[in-house]
C-alpha cells in the first residue's frame, strides 16, 4: 500500500466525501495571472467602519483578551436584540441569541442541532456553496430545490412541491441571495411560511445580506405568523459592516433551539472572538449611518452593472439585494464553466460559474459588484471586448 493510500485511509469517510470547493479551480487559475480584475469576490470592498476598528483597538489596549460568556458579551446580545427589532423580530438576549464565529459557525451549529442522520434538508438553489456540505456533515440527506430565472430565482411553493419538499425536516433559505441577488418580499414569503407550517418544517433563514436590499426593507420569515418557533435566523456583521475577516455572526431563535446550538458551541468554540465582539458592538452603537452609505454605493454600482449587462446581451433577473448579479452566459459558448475560464484567460476578468451554486446555476455566472465604479467599468469593457471577439 502506498504512503498516500495509507494516509487516505486515515481520513474519515465524512471528510473524504466532502468535495473541494468548486471555486478553487478558478482561484488557482486567477492566482497565476497578473492584472486580474476580480468580479468573483464574495465580500465588500469597504473596510470595516472606523467605529468598529477603533472599538477593537480599544478592547485590546484595555486587555480585553479573555473568553466571553459562551453566548457572547451580554451588551452585544442586547444591542443585537435591539437591532433585530428593526425587522420586527423580538428575541430575549439572555436565552434566544447566540454570538458565533461568523455566520458560518451559526449555520453549522443550526444544522447539527436540528438534523438527525437521514433527515431531509431542502436547499433552494442556486445558493451559497456551504449549505450542502454543512448539511451533509450533519448527516442530512440533501434535497435540492431548483429556483429559476423565470421566477427571479425566488422560492415558490410550486418549486417546493416539484422537488418533493413536503417530507423535508429543514429548509434553508438565503434572501437576499448569494449568488443571484434575488430577494423575497413578504407576499412571496407568506406561502413559503404556510408550507413550512403545513409540513412541519424547521426553517434556517440565513439573512446575512438583510441590510443590502435596494428597494425596501428586508422581511424576515421569522416575523411571519407561526414562524418564530420554527425558525433559526442567522445573521452577522460580515456583509452589512464589511467585517468578513473579523468572523462574527449570530443566531436568533426560540430558546430550546438556541440552547441546543449553544451546547455544541460551548464545546467546539467556547466563545466567539472577543476582539471581534467588541468591534461588532462598536459597529452597532456608532453614530452616523455607515450601513446606508455603503448600501447607497452598492446600489449605484448595481444599476451600472445591470445596465451594462443588458446592453451586452447578457440579461440578469433584476437583482434587488446582496451585491451580485447572475447574468446568463452568452449562448455561443458551451457553458458557464467555459465562459468563466475563457474570460479569465483571455481578458483577465474573474467571475464565478453559476453551476457551482447548485441546481439552476448552469448557464449563468455570478458577478460581484463589490468593486469601485472605475474597476467595474474596466471589467465590463473587457467583457465587451471578449464578447466582440466571438
Amino acid at each position, binding site marked *: 500500500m502506498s504512503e498516500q493510500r495509507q494516509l487516505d485511509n486515515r481520513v474519515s469517510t465524512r471528510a473524504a466525501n466532502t468535495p473541494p470547493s468548486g471555486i478553487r479551480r478558478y482561484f488557482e487559475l486567477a492566482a497565476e495571472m497578473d492584472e*486580474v480584475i476580480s468580479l*468573483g469576490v464574495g465580500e465588500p470592498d469597504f473596510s470595516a467602519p472606523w467605529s468598529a476598528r477603533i472599538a477593537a483597538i480599544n478592547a485590546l489596549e484595555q486587555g480585553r483578551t479573555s473568553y466571553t460568556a459562551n453566548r457572547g458579551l451580554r451588551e452585544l446580545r442586547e444591542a443585537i436584540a435591539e437591532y433585530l427589532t428593526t425587522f420586527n423580530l423580538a428575541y430575549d438576549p439572555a436565552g434566544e441569541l447566540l454570538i458565533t464565529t461568523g455566520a458560518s459557525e451559526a449555520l453549522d451549529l443550526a444544522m447539527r442541532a436540528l438534523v438527525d442522520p437521514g433527515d431531509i434538508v431542502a436547499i433552494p438553489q442556486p445558493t451559497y456553496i456551504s449549505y450542502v456540505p454543512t448539511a451533509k456533515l450533519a448527516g442530512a440527506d440533501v434535497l435540492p430545490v431548483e429556483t429559476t430565472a423565470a421566477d427571479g430565482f425566488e422560492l415558490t411553493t410550486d418549486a417546493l412541491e416539484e422537488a418533493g419538499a413536503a417530507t423535508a425536516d429543514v429548509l434553508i433559505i438565503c434572501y437576499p441571495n448569494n449568488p443571484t441577488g434575488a430577494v423575497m418580499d413578504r407576499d412571496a414569503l407568506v406561502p413559503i411560511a404556510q408550507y413550512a407550517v403545513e409540513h412541519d418544517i424547521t426553517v434556517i433563514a440565513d439573512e446575512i445580506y438583510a441590510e443590502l436590499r435596494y428597494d425596501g426593507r428586508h422581511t424576515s420569515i421569522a416575523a411571519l405568523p407561526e414562524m418564530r418557533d420554527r425558525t433559526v435566523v442567522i445573521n452577522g456583521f460580515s456583509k452589512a459592516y464589511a467585517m468578513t475577516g473579523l468572523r462574527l455572526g449570530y443566531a436568533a431563535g426560540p430558546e430550546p433551539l438556541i440552547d441546543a446550538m449553544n451546547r455544541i458551541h460551548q464545546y467546539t468554540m467556547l466563545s466567539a472572538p472577543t476582539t471581534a465582539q467588541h468591534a461588532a458592538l462598536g459597529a452597532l452603537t456608532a453614530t452616523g449611518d455607515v450601513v446606508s452609505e455603503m448600501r447607497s454605493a452598492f446600489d449605484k454600482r448595481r444599476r451600472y452593472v445591470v445596465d451594462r449587462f443588458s446592453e451586452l446581451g447578457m440579461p440578469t433577473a433584476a437583482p434587488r439585494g446582496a451585491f451580485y448579479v447572475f447574468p446568463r452566459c452568452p449562448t455561443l459558448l458551451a457553458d458557464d464553466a467555459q465562459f468563466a475560464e475563457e474570460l479569465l484567460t483571455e481578458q483577465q476578468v474573474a467571475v*464565478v460559474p453559476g453551476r457551482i451554486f447548485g441546481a439552476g446555476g448552469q448557464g449563468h455566472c455570478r458577478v460581484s459588484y463589490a468593486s469601485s465604479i472605475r474597476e467595474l467599468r474596466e471589467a465590463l469593457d473587457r467583457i465587451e471586448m471578449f464578447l466582440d471577439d466571438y
Partner: protein
Amino acid sequence: MTTELLEILLADARQGSADIARQLETDAGSVDAAIEELEAKGVIKGYQAVIDWGKTDTARVRAEVELNVELDRETNYAEIAARIARFPEVASLRLISGSYDFAVDVEAESMQAVSQFVADQIAPIPEVTQTVTHFVMETYKERGIYFDDTDEDDRLTISP
C-alpha cells in the same frame, strides 16, 4: 435624481455622463441636462481636484485666519464678506458661530506672502477689529479624502 447625482459627482466628478446615467437608471442626455440645470441654478459651483501639495514641488502655504469684525448700521456681514472673498488668496470664507466671526482660509506661495496679505489687505478693512493667523503645518484629510489612506484591497480574488 438630484441628491443621488450630487452624491455621484462628489464621489468622483470626472465620471462621464454615460457612466453616471447607468447608475441613475437614466440616459446620458438627461444627466447632462440635470447637471447644466444645477450649474445654472448655482447649486454646482465648480469641480476641483483634491491635491496633496506636500507630494508636489510646488510651494503652497495655507493659513486659517480668524477674523473679528464690528458691524455698524451701514454694514452687514455679507458686505464685509463680499470684500474679503474677492481676493484670490482667500480660498474659503465662512461666517461661523463662537468666539470670532469669520474663518478665512488664505493660500499663497510662502509664509511671508500669507502674512503680508493678512497685514496689508485684511487687517486694514475698517470693520475688522482683530486677526489671528494659524499656519497649517500638515494636512491629513481634505474634503473627505484621507491623504495617508493605507487601506488596500487585500481580498482574495475569488471567494464564496
